[in-house]
């Protein structure tokens, strides 16, 4: 029996299963879409190593995500696997996939509007973020921090609706 096709099939099953694991705090957006799953690779002993990067060091969802990932992989019968915490390179909002960005928008959360290597967000006098509902640029920051470590709170001055912005880091 050739081991390689078997491993490839297991890796494909693992990615498919992970694509169904939603972030517990952002329903509808998977951990793959968020760029939290860095790699799935077969090791010489036949086990799959799954690389997982926390978004923020103190994010309380990290351990829940790890558990959900373990449960999903076990249910998908991918064989022996383990999860490796990957710190370097550090997770970046640049890793959110186009599909992830689209789903964030569908949830009313504005995805980061520029690259994390562009530090303009870190100077005061925020550049405005377009309202996800009416697209007005007349918006303001309500709070630099929101309901989860990854989001900030904004408000639209045109349609008066509050909305969340996914922080760019």
């Amino acid at each position: 029996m050739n081991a390689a096709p078997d491993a490839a099939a297991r890796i494909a099953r693992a990615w498919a299963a992970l694509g169904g694991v939603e972030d517990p705090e952002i329903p509808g957006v998977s951990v793959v879409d968020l760029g939290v799953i860095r790699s799935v690779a077969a090791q010489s002993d036949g086990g799959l190593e799954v690389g997982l990067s926390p978004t923020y060091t103190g994010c309380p969802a990290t351990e829940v995500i790890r558990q959900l990932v373990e449960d999903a992989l076990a249910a998908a019968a991918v064989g022996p696997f383990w999860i490796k915490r990957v710190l370097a390179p550090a997770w970046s909002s640049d890793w959110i996939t186009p599909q992830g960005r689209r789903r964030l928008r569908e949830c009313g959360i504005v995805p980061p509007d520029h690259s994390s290597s562009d530090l303009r967000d870190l100077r005061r006098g925020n550049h405005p973020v377009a309202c996800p509902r009416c697209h007005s640029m007349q918006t303001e920051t309500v709070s630099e921090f929101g309901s989860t470590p990854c989001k900030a709170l904004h408000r639209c001055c045109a349609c008066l609706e509050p909305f969340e912005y996914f922080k760019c880091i």
Partner: protein
Amino acid sequence: MSAAAMRVVDTDLFSYVLRLGDLGLVLGQRLGEWVGHAPAIEEDLGMANVALDLIGQARLFLGYAGEIEGRGRDEDAIAFLREQGEYLNPTLAEQPNGDFGQTVVRQVLIDAYQLELYERLISSTDERLAAIAAKAVKETRYHLRYSGGWLVRLGDGTQESRSRVQGALGRLWPYTAELFVEDDVDRAMQDRGVGPRLAEVHKAWSSRIGALLSEATLDRPADRPYSWFGKHGQHSEHLGYLLAEMQYLQRAHPGARW
């Protein structure tokens, strides 16, 4: 002789990593005291979020310290089950919150310090520290944006807010001296390419803080010699109370789990 007994602990690296971890742990605990008491819900959220990041960073450092030590202590044992003299954070981190202005001043001084430190630790020869620093620096930039924004608003605000933050700056400034005094551990880490030269960190910190203070229209206090050494376990009277609260659960219910 058993393998464990023969193992030589890298005490310089252990102390160095513990200092980095304790700074975040103690400051995170202090900021957590604001939860439910902040002047506005946004600031409640802000300080809780910064505290969360700091404690997250501390977990990474303290977990690593436990591995360096190699005696089976995990991040919780190190965070919660040490005595006051074993905590190696600078005394600035343990200073009381005071009013919101004093908390902001303490935060600006430490955010800028951590930012300059982490930016240099990214190129550390110790891969683990380099990885933690690369992760933490992104969070720290955001922290300074938040605290610096408040410093400017309060300093360049009303007469009342200005006099409060200027007063807090005068009270806290002397504690900044110890951030930049090198000892044998710092020098050993520099020789091994693990940590940066503190004189270099001081210079960068000083110019960053200088720019913020002038934007906030605040007067920079004069530097004064100060010889309290949190990194040697010598602390102000405030740390004991903080630890009593932080360690209560673990001391009262050893091995407690959620």
